[in-house]
């Protein structure tokens, strides 16, 4: 137990308090911290780039997370209905979830290339002029959503396990009473699934509050700009026009490429307040978290 206590204090409790404390200072990697009071927070609330980062993250929470939950539920239900032949499909559907996020982002930038990418070539067969995907500020977040849906595997498996737990007798009883497929879904499947839907939604929101890798890689690769040496690869983060600059990405940008460490801490504290509120809801709901399950 002792090393864990040391670990928790050194790598979690200390930096958390340090983040709060240094959010009231102005400093960079080299300079000594200078007390500036609430100035970092005032700047944050007036900063249009922060507004945009918040909007990007809220967009992902409002569109990407529900899309993931619905798609995970849908594929899970399809697999349950397939019964015997499900195992091959299950493996196929799950496979993309294994792909490292960096590789997945690269693959999607390639297949969604505006000029000669396979997806737009496919759309052209139907006479549809495909969008610019990762190169269009209006389409970059939908592209990231497609990427997230491709890697639906883990959510799907969680729904699959829950769906298999729905008692068959309940379905049979409902069918005998003349309930059609929709009614059985609405009144038998959905009520038993609602805790899982809540769980996947909340974990989806939590994952979105730290959404970083896919946005960073997709934007810097899609920008196609050649940059030389070290950190300057991050210059293209958020491309195009900041449309993929999520809030956690912006904390990183302020802290490291820009070197505004005090300001980055203030942004981190704001993120802490929001995410802690969401976690509090999880802890309240999930009784098993409180010990005896």
């Amino acid at each position, binding site marked *: 137990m002792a*090393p*864990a206590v040391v*670990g*928790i204090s*050194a*790598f*979690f409790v200390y930096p*958390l308090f340090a*983040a709060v404390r*240094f959010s009231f200072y102005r400093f960079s*990697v080299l300079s000594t911290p200078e007390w500036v009071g609430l100035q970092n927070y005032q700047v944050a609330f007036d900063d249009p780039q922060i507004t945009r980062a918040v909007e990007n993250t809220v967009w992902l929470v409002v569109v990407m997370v529900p899309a993931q939950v619905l798609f995970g539920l849908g*594929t899970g239900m*399809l697999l349950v209905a*397939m019964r015997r032949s499900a195992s091959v*499909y299950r493996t196929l*559907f799950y*496979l*993309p979830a*294994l792909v*490292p996020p*960096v*590789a997945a982002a*690269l693959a999607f930038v*390639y297949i969604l290339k505006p*000029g*000669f990418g*396979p997806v737009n*070539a496919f759309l052209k067969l139907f006479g549809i002029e495909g969008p610019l995907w990762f190169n269009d500020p209006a389409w970059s977040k939908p592209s990231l959503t497609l990427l997230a849906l*491709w890697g639906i595997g*883990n959510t799907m*498996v*969680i729904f699959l*396990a829950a769906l298999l737990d729905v008692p068959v007798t309940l379905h049979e009883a409902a069918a005998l009473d003349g309930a059609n497929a929709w009614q059985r879904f609405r009144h038998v499947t959905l009520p038993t699934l609602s805790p*899982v839907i809540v*769980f*996947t939604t909340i974990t989806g929101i*939590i994952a979105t509050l*730290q959404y*970083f*890798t896919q946005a960073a*890689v997709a934007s810097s690769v899609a920008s*196609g700009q*050649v940059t030389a*040496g*070290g950190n300057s*690869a991050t210059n293209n983060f958020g491309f195009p026009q900041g449309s993929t600059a999520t809030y956690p990405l912006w904390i990183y940008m302020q802290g*490291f490429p820009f070197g505004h*460490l005090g300001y*980055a801490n203030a942004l*981190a504290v704001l*993120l*802490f307040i929001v*995410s802690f509120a969401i*976690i509090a809801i*999880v*802890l309240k709901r*999930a009784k*098993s*978290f409180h*010990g005896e399950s």
Partner: protein
Amino acid sequence: MTAVAAPAHSHRATAPAVAPNRRRRETTLVFIARHSIAIALSIMFLAPFVFILLTSFMTNDQSLTSNYWPKTWHPENYIEIFHKITLLRYLTNTVIYAGLATIFTILSSVPVAYALAKLRWRGRQATFLVVICMMLLPPQITTVPLYSAWQGFGLTGTLWPLIIPTLFGDAFSIFLLRQFMLTIPDEYLDAARVDGCGEWRTLLKVVWPMARPGIAATALFQFLYAWNDYYGPLLYTSENQSNWTLSLGIASFRTLHAVAWNLVTAATVLAIAPVIIVFFFAQKAFVQGVTLTGVKG
């Protein structure tokens, strides 16, 4: 499609021949509809793999066209990427990071998970809540103070800021192992204690063997986490290219070296392949781990 239609017909044939059975026909239609959707989805899930694999065998020039079948096959692309960037170096770094992080995480997290799942002590609930918070809070919150601290130790630019913390337990692993250990009946532990085992012996001789599937799943997840990690290496090693990992190297491949898609996709295939291979060998541990994180919530 014929393979799908065939069982549908035999299925129908078993239906009573007397009077057209509406319900049966509906089932056949539903059967075909389901398989059509499943096949369409399979194609969508597989297409990205197929396209990047094909592109990785093309010439530089062809990878910039909308001709998706390699006119000539160039497996030497896979050798060329090792010359273009220090891929072997990145691979070694990734294996060191993922390997050490996995071993350290298991050694440090199993005792903590045991204490949280099976021992009664003051502060257990509070400790568990802190572990949950560590697991769920975005890592970007504590990034700046941690970076400053590692800089004070002179370790930024290396992978040690990512490896050393795993010696002190990893929140997600502790959580996963605890959930698994809760399923071990207390009677086994009581029996061991009655026989005079101390807590450490009980842990090593009784709990460890019984928790082996959970430990395997946790080790697998931790290994993949480190293998796939981009944020950690970006934060601590981007200033020193000789300590880059695979994910960092591949992400910067195109922007730093202006290479065409045939080489980028080859590097992407190289990053994906080990993970898929591991999955097929350890499928059971995988699925168990995923459901364990979900169902208990």
